[in-house]
């Protein structure tokens, strides 16, 4: 669904990690960070000229 509304493929990641698996969590975060860094800055969900500021105004 996130990809459907225009978020780049691979930017939304889900994983299941137990609270006891610290090592695995670290590795996953590293992996995902690498992956997302490769994708570059987030292009958002609307083309940049359309997006307003956080309050919704167009400035």
């Amino acid at each position: 669904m996130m990809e459907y509304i225009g978020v780049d493929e691979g930017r939304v990641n889900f994983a299941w990690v137990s609270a006891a698996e610290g090592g695995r969590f670290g590795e996953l975060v590293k992996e995902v960070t690498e992956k997302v860094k490769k994708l570059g800055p987030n292009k958002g969900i609307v083309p940049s000229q359309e997006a307003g500021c956080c309050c919704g105004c167009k400035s």
Partner: protein
Amino acid sequence: MRMQKLASAIQDAAKKLLEEKKVDLVVGFSRGSLPLRSTPCFIRKPEDAAKLTWDCSCENNLANYLRRRQDRVAVVAKGCDARSIVALINENQIDRNNLYIIGVPCSGMVDRVKVDAALEGKDLIDVEEKGDTLVLKAKGVTMEVKTGDLMHDTCKVCRYGNPVVYDMMIGDPVPAKPEDNFADVAAFEDLSPAERRAALAAEFSKCIRCYACRNACPMCYCTECFVDCSAPVWVNKSTGTDDNIMFQAGRVFHSAGRCADCGACDRACPMGINLRGMTRKMVKEVKELFGYETGVNLDDKPALAEFKADDPQPFLVKE
């Protein structure tokens, strides 16, 4: 003519139910003040049953009025209403024992936007049903249009025109239709992310955040909706295009496995936003992943209320 017969059969049924005190209230449709504007109507006295009607503009999803009621209610339900009713029964929002369902097979409701387009903006004065065509009358114009061409897009792909649950069926069942292939969703999926962003931005820049979509939805019944909550602010209340998209995406997530694709949200939208473009993505996803269709069977457990060890999880990070 066929519609008038159905209407009088509904009136008779409602009158009888109220006279025999089997129900306290009948929820159905009455004539609106304009043609093709039938409106939900609530009948408590047998003598008022004559107000009930049935035609090709009874588009509201009446399941919306049936949640958490203490009284015994009868409802005039077409296919999509019945599916939403089943979904609400499964979520314990409706007590089946207190609900009498007057099922009416539905071959689709007429989209007033399409009528307006056919009349090129002229005001509709009168409408007459003639076989499978509608005779539209406006000032200086009379035209005959195939009812099928004027139908809501949601009705065109609906496979459940015949109510899946009912206590009484009025009218003849409608013929079965082929499986919905979600061609519209697939076409949108095939666009590039940038194209999808642009298309959605164009669509959702129109949103005025009136929440009519939410209010029309029988499945949106949280006492406090995430969009109304101000601590924390789950989603901005302003009408920025990105916030509008996030609002709708949130709503769609909340209706995962619960949306019967009745199109009530889409019809309620005063800005004419194609909301089904989003809602149907979730309907497709749930059907493909879990083989689940909302509200088609009383014994089905809702997709989100069931867990299987072999549930597909293609969304997990590949390791």
